[in-house]
């Protein structure tokens, strides 16, 4: 197959999502509920309004699939922001170029201090993040940071600006074993309106980045959309198709899908399509049934009570003890602006306790580098 996921996306250029979703009948939902394996239109049907009436049986099935594939285990990880310099002006982001915030880039030794602080909590999977600035956080700097933190963690993931295949090969050799990259929205027109400045305006380069990471033999590839930017059904659907395409063409990867939902941030962006909790749950469940083998992550953008309820519905990974400020762990930067506001401020131990209370095992290590 191969080629690019863009070719798959183009099939839906003229697809009338609104009409399909409006006309999805209860019988269509019931038929999808009975299937062992969902086709793409079954998946979309489960995102329709009529599917909300079947949320409980869908949730039961999602739970079964998750148990069979992942057991009663939730993997914990922590994000580590290394720089908030950014050349992009994404309208919704706290780090955007035009926001007047304290800009900071950690030195490699500071990154190591942050890593040491995170490692004290028992976390063994870390996710390095940076804004997009090739001048302030070039690939060479990111590579040094990966090398500096590798000794403290069994897995180092990256959530950074899109790179070339060669650059991903370099970071993989330095010790990065996973990529997280959200397309933000798969709607090309909406994407253009939200990302008019900077390198992020290149929709196609970003879209194909997870594929380049897979070709570069990154073990884990996580995709998703920032929910709330566009109509969630379309973005969740296309994120699912993106995941499926990656899984089918690069079966070696451990696929992950995340569900970041827009929360308050610095600036005056108004979320055009805020997602309710019910719609988030619907999205998560439908994704689980469509991609039974995909890891599903929920971050601390969501509050503790909701995160607790999402365990058992398909979630397999959670961030814990998170700080979204650069230098937020060991360097006293907690008063500075983070990329977004954390809704679950629980410590790692508190998150572990919460997971155990739900009858699941919190796991800090699930990889051997």
């Amino acid at each position, binding site marked *: 197959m191969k080629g690019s996921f863009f070719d798959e996306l183009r099939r839906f250029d003229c697809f009338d999502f609104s009409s399909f979703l409006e006309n999805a009948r209860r019988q269509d939902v019931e038929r999808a509920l009975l299937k062992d394996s969902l086709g793409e239109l079954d998946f979309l049907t489960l995102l329709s309004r009529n599917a909300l009436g079947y949320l409980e049986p869908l949730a039961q099935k999602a739970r079964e699939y998750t*148990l*069979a*594939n*992942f*057991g*009663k*285990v939730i993997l914990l990880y922590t994000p580590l922001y290394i720089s908030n310099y950014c050349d992009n002006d994404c309208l919704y982001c706290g780090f955007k170029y035009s926001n007047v915030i304290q800009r900071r880039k950690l030195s490699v030794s500071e990154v190591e201090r942050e890593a040491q602080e995170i490692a004290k909590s*028992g976390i*063994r999977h870390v996710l390095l993040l940076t804004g997009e600035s090739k001048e302030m956080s070039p690939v060479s700097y990111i590579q040094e940071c990966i090398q500096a933190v590798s000794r403290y963690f*069994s897995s180092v993931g990256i959530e950074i600006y899109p790179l070339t295949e060669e650059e991903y090969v370099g970071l993989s050799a330095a010790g990065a074993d996973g990529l997280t990259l959200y397309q933000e929205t798969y709607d090309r027109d909406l994407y253009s309106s939200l990302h008019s400045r900077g390198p992020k305006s290149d929709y196609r380069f970003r879209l194909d980045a997870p594929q380049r990471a897979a070709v570069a033999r990154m*073990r884990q590839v996580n995709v998703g959309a920032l929910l709330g930017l566009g109509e969630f059904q379309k973005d969740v659907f296309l994120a699912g198709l993106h995941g499926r395409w990656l*899984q*089918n063409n690069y*079966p*070696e*990867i*451990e*696929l992950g899908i995340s569900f970041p939902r827009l929360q308050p941030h610095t600036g005056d962006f108004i979320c055009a399509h805020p997602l309710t909790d019910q719609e988030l749950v619907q999205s998560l469940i439908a994704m689980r049934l469509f991609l039974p*083998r995909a890891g599903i992550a929920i971050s601390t953008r969501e509050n503790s009570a909701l995160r607790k309820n999402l365990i058992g519905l398909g979630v397999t990974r959670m961030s814990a003890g998170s700080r979204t400020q650069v230098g937020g762990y060991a360097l006293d930067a907690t008063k500075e602006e983070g990329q977004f506001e954390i809704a679950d401020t629980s410590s790692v131990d508190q998150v572990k306790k919460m997971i*155990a209370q739900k*009858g*699941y*095992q919190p*796991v*800090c*290590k*699930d*990889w*051997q580098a």
Partner: protein
Amino acid sequence: MDDALIISGHKIDNRFFLGTGKFASYKLMQEAIISSGARVVTVALRRVDTQSAHDNILKYIPKECIIMANTSGARNADEAIRIARIARAAGCGDWIKIEVIPDNKYLLPDNAQTILATEVLAKEGFIVMPYVNPDLADARRLSDAGAASIMPLGAPIGTNKGVCMRELIKILIQEISLPIIVDAGIGRPSHAAEAMELGASAVLVNTAVATAEDPVLIAQAFSLAVKAGRIAYRAGVVLPKAQAEPSSPLTGFLR
């Protein structure tokens, strides 16, 4: 008559092997091991954290058990070999279940890469237990490469569909002198009994125990089913036939 399973000179009292992944807690996993009397347990190296005082899975495995580290996460022979060596250095011993899975959708193993890894690790003194798709030619290659057993899948991991590959597994049992240990896809104790009735040397179960409502009780049931299946096999259990057969055969009059 002593019917113990012998693998690479080791006498194994219980033909029920248990996987330790997917449990809700290490304590529960430990209780399931004890209640079933399992003497061989698999452990994914990716989960072994020797730096942690509280979260080290190895501390929850009873001392009388043989730990069979598995190379979960390996996508090719090189990765499996690397993981095996790390496992041994981490104190997991010489038993190694080779899992080379380049396909994360169905979790089916790569037989060719498994054979390559077996050749290398057997020479390094590992007791190699390769997890494979049931294939006679590959089983012969694995035997020649120094494998201590063959572990064919009953059905894809996590599906709980039972011994779907029974016809191919029967061929392996008939033709290969190594222990044939059915691994993956076993969803119920009756599946485990069936595998043993066919003549399998042992059965390995993980998902069906770890995700059961009562893992401790079901582990016990699996162990008993494996014993029952083994006794049935030794008693010469009558296997299903393709067609009806009268209880008085046509040539009975000649006696």
